[in-house]
């Protein structure tokens, strides 16, 4: 029996935006059929010539993307030294002088890049970094290490106090989760500076975040005790 495949509303809207096939047609077909058929067998929605060309292009894109994605995963970049990380981020952030950007490379246990993301974009002299955003991506990728990087549009080649305290904060959050902060690369103009090389990379936890296992029995007991206390209080209130 054919497996029923559900696609999101976003998928339908995006398919409509890229191919010009009406949402009504896409939804009507998808009610009883696999929506991916529209891509694999476009004639099922009777597209006009222009729409058919777009669907074919979309198929080309998906096929090439699949191959490239595999190739990219096989050719993953591995950081073996601070200079590897420095040169990598230099190619991404070098020469950017319009605003400060903060990037993170999420690594596996072999220090291979799983994913690299811009996590914050700021103004000419500052970017706001939310550890929560980094944490979300780190967990989604099941990563084991992070390399942080940001650019100084003013080309200052020194880590600021804020850079170091922010790195410490990230170490405090991630170390208890066994996610190591391996380096923080500063890009200044067309040069990089590594916090690890400069010997100022925080390695120890300063303010440990608590991720200890929570004993449910204890909680349950507390809850029961609290409930009993509430009932008692209510009874006492009634007596009054």
């Amino acid at each position, binding site marked *: 029996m054919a497996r029923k495949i559900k696609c999101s509303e976003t998928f339908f809207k995006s398919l409509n935006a890229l191919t010009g096939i009406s949402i009504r047609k896409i939804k009507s077909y998808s009610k009883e059929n696999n929506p991916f058929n529209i891509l694999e067998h476009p004639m099922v929605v009777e597209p006009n010539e222009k729409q058919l060309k777009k669907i074919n292009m*979309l198929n080309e894109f998906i096929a*090439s993307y699949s191959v490239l994605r595999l190739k*990219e995963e096989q050719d993953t970049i591995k950081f073996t030294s601070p200079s590897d990380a420095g040169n990598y981020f230099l190619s991404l952030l070098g020469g950017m002088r319009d605003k400060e950007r903060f990037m993170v490379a999420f690594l596996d246990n*072999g220090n291979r890049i799983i994913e690299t993301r811009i996590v914050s974009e700021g103004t000419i002299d500052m970017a706001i970094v939310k550890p929560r955003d980094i944490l979300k991506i780190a967990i989604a990728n099941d990563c084991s290490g992070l390399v942080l990087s940001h650019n100084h549009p003013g080309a200052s080649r020194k880590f600021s106090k804020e850079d170091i305290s922010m790195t410490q904060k990230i170490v405090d959050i991630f170390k208890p989760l066994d996610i190591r902060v391996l380096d923080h690369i500063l890009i200044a103009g067309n040069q990089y500076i590594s916090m690890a090389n400069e010997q100022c990379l925080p390695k120890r936890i300063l303010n440990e975040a608590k991720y200890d296992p929570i004993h449910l029995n204890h909680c349950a007991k507390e809850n029961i005790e609290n409930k009993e206390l509430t009932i008692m209080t209510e009874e006492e209130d009634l007596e009054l």
Partner: protein
Amino acid sequence: MVIHKKEVTVLEAMGVLTSPTPEEKVILEEAIKILGVRNFLLNIEAYNFSEPTKEKLVDLRNIVEEFIPYLPHNDLKKGGGELG
């Protein structure tokens, strides 16, 4: 840097589907060369594309994301340690 043949196909398809300006085409090409197509799609918002181009690139990402569960997954080997 030599562009892989499949990257050319990706760029051609992106060109037809998102109608970028000539300047945007250069940004696309450079970004894919540096980041790779997957990381580029994850970071579309970081680039200075016009709204219509950005929206269409996001549409492309949305479609690809729905396909990811159907794509073969290459499990990364584990092992390694500190840098340097």
